[in-house]
């Protein structure tokens, strides 16, 4: 494996949801978008908050704060647009963020014991331990326990 491929594998986008930072693999992240209007309409899909229009495309928005933080997050500042895989194809999807993103390179470690399935690893950035999210498992997670587990991790 070349140094560049290795760097890509360990390249993450740090994102802020509420007061906590998480990470996503950089290869699935498209862009950071400004807080455009959220369009809502009746539906019965859990975790989907509505849609935004981005570059002429209708992009679904996943409200991940209750899952990650155990509560609603305050007014968000950006949308992170990432690709969610559907078999061989993918669909742009958005998650609301409360701060800017950073690109980081780090060595990934296994997730801590008992962490929810959507936490696929952890790494250190300075003094901070950041958890890597599995985007697919995060946006399809509907177990009530995971909100408590994820929130408990944030307690000092």
């Amino acid at each position, binding site marked *: 494996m070349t140094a560049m491929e290795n760097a890509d594998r360990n390249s993450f986008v740090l994102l802020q949801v509420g007061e906590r930072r998480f990470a996503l693999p950089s290869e699935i992240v498209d862009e950071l*978008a400004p807080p455009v209007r959220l369009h809502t*309409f009746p539906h019965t899909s859990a975790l989907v908050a509505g849609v935004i229009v981005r*570059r002429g495309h209708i992009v679904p928005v996943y409200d991940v704060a209750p899952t990650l933080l155990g509560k609603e997050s305050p007014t968000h500042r950006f949308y992170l647009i990432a690709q969610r895989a559907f078999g061989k194809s993918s669909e742009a999807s958005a998650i609301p963020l409360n701060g800017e993103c950073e690109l980081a390179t780090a060595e990934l470690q296994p997730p801590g014991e008992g962490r929810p399935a959507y936490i696929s690893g952890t790494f250190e950035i300075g003094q901070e331990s950041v958890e890597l999210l599995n985007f697919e498992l995060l946006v399809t997670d509907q177990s009530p326990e995971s909100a408590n587990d994820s929130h408990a991790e944030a307690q000092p």
Partner: protein
Amino acid sequence: MKIASQDVGKSKRTRRSEPVILFSVAHQTFAISADSVQEIRSTDSMAGAANEIEQPLLAKVRHTIERAHRKYFVVNACTHFNLPITRPTLVLILRQLRVAVLVDKIERMAEINAVHALPRAFIGEERRWYRGLAYVEDHVIPVIEPAGFLTRKEFLALDRVTKAAESQREMEGAVQA
């Protein structure tokens, strides 16, 4: 990380536009193809023609109406879409289906150039409710699938219940006579 600009790209393909009726239910706007609506009537004008279903099978269908020798099932759109209950003032009588839909008001007619597929993130009942989404004057509006108001199974069950009730009434009428 660079923040992309807010411009919304427009498709350069020429598309046939489709006339739709924009209507609202509990402050939520929907679009339905104008072709799929036979008639729009006020609930006041239909009151005398509505038959109450004595033991409703579905919470969203409590009445039937007869139009041109056909029995239509009246669907309350608030209940159908799980919206707060309002006082609907209009009935959309659909063209191809025996469904009449109670709505709050007609906003206006519009032309839409495209019906965008519902994103795959949506996995619930909305996949049956909507044909897709339309972008109308800076608003994303769901485009109704007329066949989504009642499933075939629901039609059959409602037909059975209403026929049984009619037979019962006829028998009672015959006995009293």
